[in-house]
């Protein structure tokens, strides 16, 4: 499997996915 960080688009998409995941983590933490 290729490393997504080798491509610029893979890097950006990974960042967006991580943002969504962390958003729901924080939403849970603040009781939203």
């Amino acid at each position, binding site marked *: 499997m290729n490393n997504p*960080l*080798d491509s610029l688009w893979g*890097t950006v998409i990974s*960042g967006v996915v*991580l*943002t969504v995941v962390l958003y729901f*983590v*924080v*939403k849970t933490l603040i009781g*939203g």
Partner: protein
Amino acid sequence: MDFVPALARWLHFMAGVMWIGLLYYFNFVQVAALKAAATDNTAAGITKHVAPRALFYFRWAALVTWLAGAALLGGNFVSAFTLQPGHAAIGVGAWLGTIMLFNVWGLIWPNQKKVLGLKPATDEEKNRARRVAFLASRTNTMLSIPMLFFMAAGAHTSLYFG
């Protein structure tokens, strides 16, 4: 006006723009430029004259950004880093920024010194250093996306979390 947080926020923004701006320059511009330059032997212009200057402002802007951010958190520093409910959003942003600062000073800069010939290294060491620095830089580009989201969300929690 409360001068310390006001000046810290201003400094945090200015240094942050320089840090992340140069990070995006490296990842969106310089990596592709070096690849193209390798085909006509013009890469030295970038590695000798551009990259060392860009790295100088990049690494020091990273440190100033973090210190100004810490000053801005002030008494909320521990609450943020322990992700307490009222400070969880800015806390996640602060953790991501801290990991990125470590990547700059612990991985990117020491390895770039070998790549650029500022520190003696064999060709094998240079190749390995180039890969480590590249992946750390790409990791920071990836982390910058949620980091900037949570910096914005931390200052406007109700807008982002309802």
